[in-house]
């Protein structure tokens, strides 16, 4: 899968992702559609190795909440955004908790790196490790 833009160094978990409705306890890969409730996966986070979240159209934004909810619950394996996604959304995706993206049209790696390096600071805490400026201002 050369077209996956991945920010993880561990080997890709290649099991096919099943729809949430077909997910069985113990399964290692699952796919959430925009309307699926990510919290239904919370009992299964120990078994899961990859969660895919679908973005069937650009206007779709529910997946950002889904990813962040999974990270807030402590999930550390891959969360992959799949669908109509542009490189310019990369910072939002990463901050919401995604660490892999499979876009319809592959990202230009140079533009992707430039995008990720663009903003030196962030205003709010999110699912990544970035410290918000209010914490930096407190000297912390």
């Amino acid at each position, binding site marked *: 899968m050369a077209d996956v833009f991945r920010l993880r160094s561990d080997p890709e978990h290649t099991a096919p992702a099943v729809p949430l409705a077909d997910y069985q306890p113990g399964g290692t890969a699952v796919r959430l559609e*925009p309307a699926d409730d990510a919290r239904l996966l919370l009992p299964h986070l120990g078994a899961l190795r990859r969660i895919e979240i679908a973005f069937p159209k*650009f*206007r*779709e*934004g*529910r997946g*950002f*909440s889904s990813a*962040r909810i999974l990270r*807030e619950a402590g999930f550390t394996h891959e969360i992959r955004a799949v669908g109509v996604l*542009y490189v*310019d959304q990369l*910072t*939002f*995706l*990463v*901050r*919401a908790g995604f660490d892999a993206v499979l876009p319809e049209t592959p990202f*230009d790696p140079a*533009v992707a790196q*430039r*995008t990720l390096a*663009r*903003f*030196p*600071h*962030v*205003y*709010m*805490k*999110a*699912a990544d490790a970035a410290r*918000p*400026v*209010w*914490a*930096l*201002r*407190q000297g912390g």
Partner: protein
Amino acid sequence: MYRYDQYDQAIVDARVAEFKDQVARRLRGEITEDQFKPLRLMNGLYLQLHAYMLRVAIPYGTLDSRQLRMLAHIARRYDRGYGHFTTRQNIQYNWIKLEETPDLLADLASVEMHAFQTSGNCIRNISSDQFAAAAADEIADPRPYAELLRQWSTLHPEFSFLPRKFKIAVTGSALDRAAIQLHDIGIQLVQNDAGEIGLKVLVGGGMGRTPMLAPVIRAWLPVADYLSYMEAILRVYNRHGRRDNIYKARIKILVNDLGAAEFARQVEEEWAQLKPLGLDPPPSELARIAAHFQPPALDAGAPVDIDLSNPEFANWVAVNTHSHKVPGHAIVTISLKAPGEIPGDASADQMDRIADLAERYAQDEIRVTHAQNLVLPHVAQADLFAIWQALRDIGLATANLDRASDIISCPGLDYCTLANARSIPIAQKLAVRLAPQEAELGELKIKISGCINGCGHHHAGHIGILGVDRKGEENYQLLLGGSGAEDASLAKILGPGFDENGIVTAVEKVIDRYKSLRADPSERFLDTWRRVGAEPFKEAVYG
């Protein structure tokens, strides 16, 4: 006034570089217009009927003279010498060239301004009370609370692709000059018996196709929990707001469908998850921001008697100034509504002169109002005459604040791709016709939108006018009885619509009937309407 530190400046500078890169990729053909559109929209750049339109954010409507001069420079350098102040306390430029926008944004960034999120399905410019820090009825200056929200909502990773746009207003007064009941979220600073400040939170108001007043979902929110609670509201909306129908996608539909109590319960449930995550900055951050908004050092012993022997000046003082919390001072509203002119427009030269006045007489502050006027918030009464003379020299001494010719109007079909009908010519005609009798009419708020999206706030007008398309013809509906103030109400359609001349005549008939119905000259049109109802007005217009 808030001033950027190195973090704020670095973020705005990065945004300029990002947009420059995006425009370059578009001009090289590396991205399609379809891909580029959402990117430019999140920087406030619309493609309108004739050219690109750029909307610049004026956070909570506060500017200093340096910033207003930059807005004048932009009008001259990149536009046709004028700008249009909007109902969201922003400014729009209507004749922008795409290839020049990166330079324009860089110019803005040099005075701590930007166009972040002035369009798109994200959290828009935070609006507030234009009399903040000057009004006598205020509990506290709402702008630090608005600035905290501005920062929190800027490039928010979870809430940049909401079901629809999202508008938040913050006020520190019980007298509502910010229309908080007509916002997606309205926040009112309140005080408890112990003298502590907390937040009253309203959710789910709005105008547009389905106008609604926002219910209170929390009567008291501790300031320490402010941002985590906002996250909870936005998360419930982002996950559950409708995305199948653009006309039902605003949060008001979700709140209305669930009921305010159930919506509030879901927010509390989500908040229980979010609150322990450390999303709220420590109190020192709000204190840091608030330190930028120290009230100006005004002399409370300043003279209160001014020479009102010039009747024109005396009238302007009576109509366009409000009392200030510090004796001997006043709040001046500069009307951008000279009858016959385009509501909310100001030329570059006018902006420069107003900047001069702010610097010289008004503690270097200017405010933009949602009624598309400008305010000098801190003025010594002794300086009023000099200010009035200077304004008269540039055609801005119109004494019509909150009167019949002080009309709110969207750009309408003259500029906007969404519009079904022209708004500006209706506003111009009405203003010219009504100005001669407006003094005897007292407070009368007329608001005109050129389409159902309601940017001209027609639902909040004492008299509202909505332009629609009827079989290819412009048609204007007449609505009566709205208010965007603390006594908020939604205007109701009176009956069948009119053509361009017919709507002007119909408004005149309504006003004539009001004059014969009012209990005494101090009874406002809105109060007469509330007392007598629609029937007498229907009879006057259609009978």
